[in-house]
């Protein structure tokens, strides 16, 4: 099953399970979604539950917040993560804060889904990776599924959770295939990292699509450099399964963090701080970060390709942790 079909199945099953789950978003109905994630759902569930909205990101998310406060479980789709900035007010000032600032009187069981990622030459307004922006915000849960099975399992968990969830999909991953359990109760708990490959020499943490890039790099490292990397996909960044990462680092004594987003204030910057705080004595080398370039995403194909990480950069970073073995 493809990643996008897995997401579709999660939405379909959760809508069947709970009549108060409903979808809102631009072109998610008649058009079947900009990336076809919601294909067929309008037909299956009707206009009451699958709502095409005007292009009003802040208001759609805000209505989702309001409806979540008063009994629904809305799932809002934004066409790309770039457009979520128009809804930043409703996401940060409202969804994330409301329960806290009102002393716990209400909950906000809202899911905001959107894809991110470079590689389609869409330039600076459509290609960024911003999990770090949402990771920053207490009150939100943040998921970055990489496999089809996780896409389905995490989305189902997100919909069932009583907290606002920022659910970050990836444009490149939509077409990727993977095994997906058929079970309608297949959920993936937030806060549990997946170890994609076991290894004893170095820990590579890959976020979102970069978990796949890291896994490819690990294969090459084993074949060509005799280095066995352990690849960890955190799957959710809030909550973060730091324990699994720390346990791995304590075993391998080396850590490389790979993400597609910008370096400053990124997921890797944060994670590197956590790891060195808590496993400093276990580290044999400085933690390496591999990130997207510190630029707005360029349109030009060759420029775009060097603006986000690929396998060679991950391999270089791993070798750097071994110093002279380069």
């Amino acid at each position, binding site marked *: 099953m493809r990643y996008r079909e897995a997401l579709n199945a999660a939405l379909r099953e959760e809508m069947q399970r709970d009549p*108060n789950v*409903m979808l809102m978003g631009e072109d998610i109905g008649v058009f079947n979604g900009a990336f076809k994630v919601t294909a067929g759902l309008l037909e299956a569930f009707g206009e009451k539950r699958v709502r095409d909205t*005007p292009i009003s990101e802040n208001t759609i998310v*805000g209505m989702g917040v309001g409806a979540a406060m008063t009994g629904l479980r809305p799932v809002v789709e934004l066409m790309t993560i770039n457009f979520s900035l128009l809804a930043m007010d409703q996401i940060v000032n409202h969804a994330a804060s409301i329960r806290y600032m*009102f002393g*716990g*009187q209400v909950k906000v069981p809202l899911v905001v889904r959107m894809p991110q990622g470079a590689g389609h030459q869409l330039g600076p307004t459509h290609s960024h990776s911003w999990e770090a922006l949402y990771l920053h915000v207490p*009150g939100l849960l943040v998921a970055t599924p990489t496999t089809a099975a996780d896409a389905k399992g995490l989305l189902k968990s997100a919909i069932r*959770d009583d*907290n606002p969830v920022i659910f970050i999909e990836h444009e490149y991953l939509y077409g990727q295939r993977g095994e997906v359990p058929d079970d309608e109760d297949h959920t993936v708990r937030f806060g549990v990292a997946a170890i994609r490959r076991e290894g004893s020499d170095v820990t590579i943490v890959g976020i979102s699509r970069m978990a796949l890039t890291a896994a490819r790099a690990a294969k090459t490292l084993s074949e060509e450099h005799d280095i066995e990397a352990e690849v960890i996909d955190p799957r959710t960044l809030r909550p973060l399964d730091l324990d699994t990462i720390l346990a791995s680092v304590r075993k391998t004594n080396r850590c490389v963090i790979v993400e597609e987003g910008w370096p400053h204030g990124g997921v890797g910057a944060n994670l590197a701080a956590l790891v060195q705080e808590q496993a400093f004595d276990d580290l044999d080398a400085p933690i390496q970060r591999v990130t997207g370039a510190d630029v707005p995403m360029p349109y030009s194909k060759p420029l775009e390709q060097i603006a986000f990480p690929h396998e060679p950069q991950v391999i270089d970073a791993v070798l750097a942790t071994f110093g002279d073995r380069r």
Partner: protein
Amino acid sequence: MLLIRRFEERAGEMYAKAKIGGFLHLAIGEEATIVGSTRALRDQDYLISTYRSHGHTLARGSEPERVMAELFGRVDGLCNGRGGSMHMFDLQNRFMGGYGIVGGNLPLAAGFALASDYLERDEVTLCQFGDGASNQGTFGETMNLAALWRLPVVFMVTNNQFGMGTALERHSAVTDLMRKGEGFGVPGMRCDGMDVADTYNVTCDALRIAREERQPVLVEAVTYRFRGHSMADPEEYRTKEQVDEWRKRDPLTVFGDQLVAAGVLGEDEREAIDRETIERVDRAVAFADASPHPSPNDLYDDIYVLGEQVRGWYSVDERTPTPHRGEDESAMDRAELPHAAEHAGATTAKPADAAQADED
């Protein structure tokens, strides 16, 4: 109206005494708009407002004690001292909040109305905001969506003539605010926001149209705030004469006089009610003063709904050198945590508390 007036006067005094922190936005002068519109609601209807909403939550039935305690930032406040003046909320009385972001409450209101509609509940949402807020993008976006989806919501723009220090004609190209929703499919009505009966009648009509015809309506309530925008306002943008002119229409005086003239109220009763109201506010102040400050242990409460998925709070703070404790701290006693009360603000983790699990 009297309770709101006396309550807010006292709040102003308490602010001067530094019992209340942050911003304090008083609605003195706007009581007829608040009470006239709120009284038109049914119990199950939703009311949502702005940072100027002590009056709204009182009109909806919140106890003055708890509102004052919230202003004082105490645990017995409506929001346990988390929200303060700008962020009142009383779910039980369906006062769905004051919000500090100008224009931020409109989409939420449409969301409440969406849920009412979806769940086929006979509820209407009344959403109040200022003339200044009518320039935000959410105004147009929400009007359009509410009209498009025929949601049971009434928007009320409280035209108190100013957005902070910017006069209406200096901030809005269209000053006839009731017309501002028309292009989005939301017809307008206007009421005299200094007249409690007129406000009540017009709001009743608007609510009926929204409830029965599923047609959102924009009501412009023409009113005036006698005090500054907040307590920190030197009021250099308007003349004393203008304020005095509007004060002649003080809804408390006008309505009180009307009641006396109509023989509904005797002068002595009028004074007695005032005295009782002042005593009630005294009690609210005493209650607020006696209520404790929230414990530092409460800092991390209610950020998340704890449950299967989120079992504990494991915030990260770079100032703490001790190890991260992992997430599953449900079994731990709070006191055992490495950074309990004395280090609040530098806490790595907080235990899940079964008692916190959401009631519904």
